[in-house]
C-alpha cells in the first residue's frame, strides 16, 4: 500500500473529527498516569465531581507558547464554604503541572486567569478543592497549531 498525500489529508481529517468529541474525565486520567498521580496528591484521593468548576481555554491556540486560560468556581467564598485551590494541568507537556491557584475568603470570587505553554494539541485539566474536601474537575481540549512557513 502506498500512501498518497490525499490519504494523509483524509487521515488528518478523521483524527480531527475524533478529537472534536467531548472528553470524559475518566479517559483523560487513564491516558496520563503522571497527571493522575498529581491529581491524587492534590485531591487526597477524593473522587472528583463534575460541574461547579469552569475551565475556559481557546479551542485553537494560535501559538502554543502563550495560551490564555481561566478558571472559575461557583462558590459563596465564605469562611465556612470556599474554594481552597484550583490546580491546572496540561497532560501533553513534558511535565503536566502548570499552576495551582490558592484562594481565601478574601479573594471574594474563585476566579483566576493566566497564560500557559502547551507543547502540542492536548487536554488541559483543572481540579478544584473546596473547604469541605470535595473536589471538582473540568477538562478542555486545546488544539495547538503550527505556524506558517516558518513553523
Amino acid at each position, binding site marked *: 500500500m502506498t500512501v498518497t498525500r490525499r*490519504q494523509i489529508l483524509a487521515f488528518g481529517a478523521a483524527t*480531527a473529527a475524533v478529537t472534536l468529541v467531548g472528553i470524559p474525565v475518566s479517559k483523560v486520567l487513564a491516558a496520563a498516569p503522571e497527571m493522575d498521580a498529581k491529581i491524587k496528591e492534590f485531591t487526597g484521593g477524593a473522587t472528583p465531581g463534575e460541574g461547579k468548576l469552569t475551565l475556559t481555554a481557546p479551542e485553537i491556540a494560535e501559538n502554543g507558547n502563550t495560551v490564555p486560560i481561566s478558571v472559575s468556581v461557583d462558590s459563596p467564598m465564605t469562611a465556612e464554604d470556599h474554594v481552597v485551590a484550583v490546580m491546572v494541568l496540561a497532560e501533553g507537556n513534558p511535565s503536566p503541572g502548570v499552576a495551582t491557584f490558592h484562594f481565601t475568603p478574601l479573594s471574594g470570587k474563585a476566579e483566576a486567569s493566566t497564560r500557559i505553554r502547551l507543547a502540542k494539541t492536548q487536554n488541559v485539566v483543572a481540579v478544584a478543592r473546596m473547604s469541605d474536601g470535595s473536589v471538582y474537575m473540568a477538562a478542555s481540549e486545546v488544539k495547538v497549531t503550527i*505556524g*506558517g512557513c516558518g513553523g
Partner: protein
Amino acid sequence: MTKSRVNPVRGVGHMGRTIVSKNEIKWGLSVSLFGVGLLSVGLLSVGLSIAPAQADPVDDTLVIDGKEMITRTAAPEGHPFKEVLSGWLFRTEETRALEADSFQNPAMLGVDEGAEIWETVEGTAGKSCASCHGDAAESMAGIGAHYPKWDPETKRPVNMELKINQCREKNMGAEAYKFDAREQKALTSFIKYQSLGDPMSIDLSQGDMRAWWDKGKELYYTRTGQLNLACGSCHEASMGKMIRADHLSQGQVNGFPTYRLKQQGLVSLHNRLRGCIRDTRAEMPKAFSDDLMAIEVYVTWRGTGLSMETPAVRH
C-alpha cells in the same frame, strides 16, 4: 497504513525545520518532533483553506484605552487592494483581546522599559532623550506614524531605529544600539507608542523617497529563495488564505515592534522581514540594509491610513 510509509513525508517536514535558526525556538520542546506530530494538522489546514469562513478577516473593532483604531481603510491611489487591513483582523479572538487590553498586552513591559530609557542619561554629552525632547507624550506624539523619513545628510531613508541611533551618536555621545538590542526595541516601541491610533503615512516627496519606494516595490514582487516566493505571493496574491495553520494577512507594518506569541517578546520590523525572507529559504539581507530599508518604505506606504498599533500583539 504503516509508520514507515509515512517517512518520506516526515522527511519533508524535517527539511522544513533545518533552516530555522535555533534562536527562534523559544521553548526547548523538540520542535522538529512538534512539526512532525502536527504535520497532519498542517496538511489538514491546507485542506481547509478552501473554506472562506476560515480565511476572511474578522469584522471587529479594536479599541485600546478608549481609542478606536483604524484597522480597515480605503487604500491609497495605485494600491493593489481596495482596502488596507490591519493584521489584527486576521488573528484569533484571544490574540485580539490581548492587544485590546493595554494592561494585558505583554509588550507594554517593553514600552515601560522604553520610558525609563527615555529618562536615562547616557554618553559623553551627559544627556538623556528627555534632556532635549522633554515629555515624550508631547514631543513624540504623532512622530512615529510618519517614518521612514528622508534623511538629507546620509541621503537615505531613516526609520525610527536609525533615527534613535543618529541621535545617540551625534547628540548624546553614546554608542549606537546594535540591531535588535533589547533597549533598541524598547525605546522604538515607546516612541512609536506615542502615536497610538494615529493614521500611518509617509512623505514620498522628500529627497529620493520615490526612488526608494520604486526599489521597494520591485523587491516586493521579486521571487526569491528555494521556495521562489515574493512578498506579494503570500501577502497579496494569497492574502486571507491559510499557509499551513497560519492566516495570511496583508503583511502590514503598523504594529511594529510587535509582541509575537511565538517569540514571547518584542519583534522588530527588520527582524520580521528577515524571518519572512529566511522562510522562503533565501539569503537574508542585513537589518537596515538598502534592500530592507526600501522594503520598509514601500510596505509602510502599503498601510497608509491604518492606525499605529505599536506595540501590537500577533501570533
